[in-house]
């Protein structure tokens, strides 16, 4: 495998221009956390973004932070913590900012912090043929033209290299608590979600439910009291809810269904991790057949089940969405060198 490791954004422009000219296929790589999502086998060359790790601007009073795409989440966390703030993405510290944006990572605390896609307010990216494009603005609100940064979010490195981003950040919670039940299941988790107002997360597994509380100290105490009226809760390891699920499994799919269909989605599965009130559920699949069955079930519930670890790709989309996507791909990566095939099938 060949490696390109640019040290600045101009280097990315140069690399992409050259790659398009000779038709060299390339995979954009950050912290290697989402390598399997949608991937279809080996690509000859990797472009590493990890040397693009500068802080461009950070003033806590603006609640915005501008960094380069290769910055590691661990470094960003430390920077923001000094300002009493956070970017609420709970991925590994070795993940890169650009990588988790390109993968549109799920935020376990979505009920409290919203979606990742709404935290990206400005982006600079380099297209497959080396054009450096900026969209959005360094303001928390902005309706100025087409939000290309939204298109790049979740694009899995197929439209361009995310080189710089302005992130909307938030104050660190004053208090946090993670509680765990002795029993599991969607039903118990639903009761907890209803009983406990404004939790950060209610995570259901087959043998336990994790309740993550965040906020002002008095608020967290009140939430814990209300949750305790529904189930026996013990304090848990504060990091348990954010560990990647099923580290032992070769294939893990992340289904996405409406929240009320989570129970139907996990029925019959021995192991799962579901985000109540959100609709994500991680399920390990032993083989292709098991994955196929899960996808059928998700589809019957109006959802999807892309693979996030192991082989299997992301799945199918409707033909009109795929056709518009094809035209966008042609415009931003005209030589089709950015991870061709890493896409939703029609």
């Amino acid at each position: 495998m060949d490696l390109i490791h640019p040290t600045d954004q101009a280097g990315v422009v140069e690399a992409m221009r050259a790659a398009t000219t000779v038709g060299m296929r390339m995979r954009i790589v950050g912290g290697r956390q989402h390598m399997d999502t949608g991937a279809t086998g080996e690509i000859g060359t990797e472009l590493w973004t990890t040397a693009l790790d500068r802080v461009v601007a950070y003033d806590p009073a603006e609640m915005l932070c501008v960094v380069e795409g290769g910055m590691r989440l661990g470094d960003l966390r430390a920077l923001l913590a000094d300002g009493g703030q956070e970017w609420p993405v709970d991925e590994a510290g070795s993940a890169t900012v650009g990588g988790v944006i390109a993968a549109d990572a799920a935020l376990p605390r979505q009920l409290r912090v919203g979606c990742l896609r709404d935290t990206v307010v400005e982006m600079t990216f380099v297209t497959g043929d080396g054009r450096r494009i900026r969209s959005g603005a360094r303001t928390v609100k902005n309706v100025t033209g087409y939000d290309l940064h939204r298109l790049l979010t979740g694009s899995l490195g197929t439209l361009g290299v995310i080189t710089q981003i302005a992130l909307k950040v938030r104050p660190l919670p004053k208090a946090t608590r993670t509680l765990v039940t002795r029993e599991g299941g969607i039903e118990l988790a639903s009761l907890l979600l209803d009983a406990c107002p404004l939790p950060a997360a209610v995570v259901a597994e087959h043998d336990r439910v994790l309740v993550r509380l965040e906020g002002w100290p008095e608020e967290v105490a009140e939430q814990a009291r209300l949750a305790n009226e529904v189930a026996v809760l013990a304090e848990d390891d504060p990091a348990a809810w954010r560990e990647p699920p099923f580290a032992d499994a070769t294939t893990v799919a992340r289904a996405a269904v409406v929240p009320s269909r989570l129970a139907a989605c996990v029925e019959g599965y021995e192991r799962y991790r579901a985000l109540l009130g959100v609709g994500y559920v991680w399920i390990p699949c032993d083989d292709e057949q098991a994955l196929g069955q899960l996808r059928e079930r998700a589809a019957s519930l109006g959802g999807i089940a892309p693979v996030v670890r192991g082989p299997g790709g992301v799945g199918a989309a409707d033909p009109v969405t795929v056709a518009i996507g094809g035209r966008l791909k042609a415009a931003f990566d005209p030589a089709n060198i950015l991870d061709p095939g890493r896409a939703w099938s029609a």
Partner: protein
Amino acid sequence: MVDLDRVRRDLEAVLGPAAVVDDPLERRLYARDASLVEGAAGLLVFPTSADEVAAAMRVAHDHGLPVVPRGSGTGLAGGATPLNDALVIVTTKMRRILDVRPQDRLAWVEPGVFNLDLANHLAPTGFTYAPDPSSQQVSSIGGNVNTNAGGPHCLAYGVTSAHVLALDVVLPDGTRVRIGAEGPAAPGYDLRGIVVGSEGTLGVVTAACVRLTPIAPAVRTMLLDFARVDDCAATVSSIVGRGVVPAALEMMDRGIVRAVEAFAHAGYPTDAAAVLLVEVDGLEAAVAAQAREVEAAAHDHGVGTVRVAADDIERALLWKGRKSAFGAIARIAPHYHLHDCVVPRTRLTDVLVGVYAIAQRHDLIVTNVFHAGDGNLHPLFSFDLSVPGTLERVLAAADEVVRLCVEAGGALSGEHGIGLEKRDFMPLVFTGEDLDAQACVRAAFDPDGRMNPHKVLPAGARCGDFAAAALARAGVLPEGTWI
């Protein structure tokens, strides 16, 4: 040359004669939105369903006719102003709330539903639709989606895009597609995120799946007054610095406070240089803690009085003052021009001082009421158009306001959009290459350029043939090239 008689016959054949209007007076009424720009409407159609929208779009496609979608017409940037006798598709007769599913935290609504009607309809479920533009009594969800509308409560809850899960869209050739998903993730690129805020240039939204937000169990609304504008602005940053993100953080200057007080009698202090309307919400325990921090921040900056709404009636009265601002200014002069730009929160005072200087230079009355927490300014110039030369002064001042905000590191629009009014300012904030890339997005949805033409992107922005350019450099077309 388009044969409008034939178009009308074809439209009547699919929609029925009553849904197609070519009366000159009606067409004149639909020749503009709430901006200062007037255009020219061709035929008007009033579909009642997605099928009818698709049928009308196919007729327009067959005749090569430009199309302008329109909701309530409250837009302030000319986005819904038709040009060159375009077909206007008015969605105001699509007013059904289709499905409310609190258990999934979503609702499906047609585009003509008024924003406030939706919030009121949802209230008994314990949920709400969070974006609340000041026009919410009459602005429609379809228009809100197309302008990515904001509102006072977007500081904590986010703008429209954060509250739209999926959209049913009719594309310019009449094809129907659902983009986004009811669940937390959708297949393919995030086309939903592109269509929200696209100002009717990519297709017609025929239904929106919106996110329901739990209504906070407790809320506290406070009015703070200051003898100095810079103390008021500094309090905004200080509140944020204390780790509080209020549900709303609105600032009003003396001019607007006086106009509002004479109109709404909300008990606003008319001697203050500026006031802040602050709302915090959440669990009662969190509300108390946040209110404490807000008061402390205000005292650090020499607040005059802190008035806390004692009950829902007083709270409604304080908000009435804020939300009736644009009605109240009719007392100042017969016409107004409302601006919308965003600057970094820390530059609010500088920009405000600059706005006052611009008004003075052009002999205009300016008042300010804005979303201070977001850095979203709304300078409001009041004037009388019957005085010769006034419009020229207003437009010259508008130009300077835009440049002032951009120089302060801001954006052209926070929530009203680009439309026609700000289209030619786009090169101030984007390079030609940036704008060409945006044109590619438009072309991916609308290759013929018939959807709301001439809006958003300035003349000259176009999606080039990048594949051909790559080929010219390479000499051969790489394998698998998309054409």
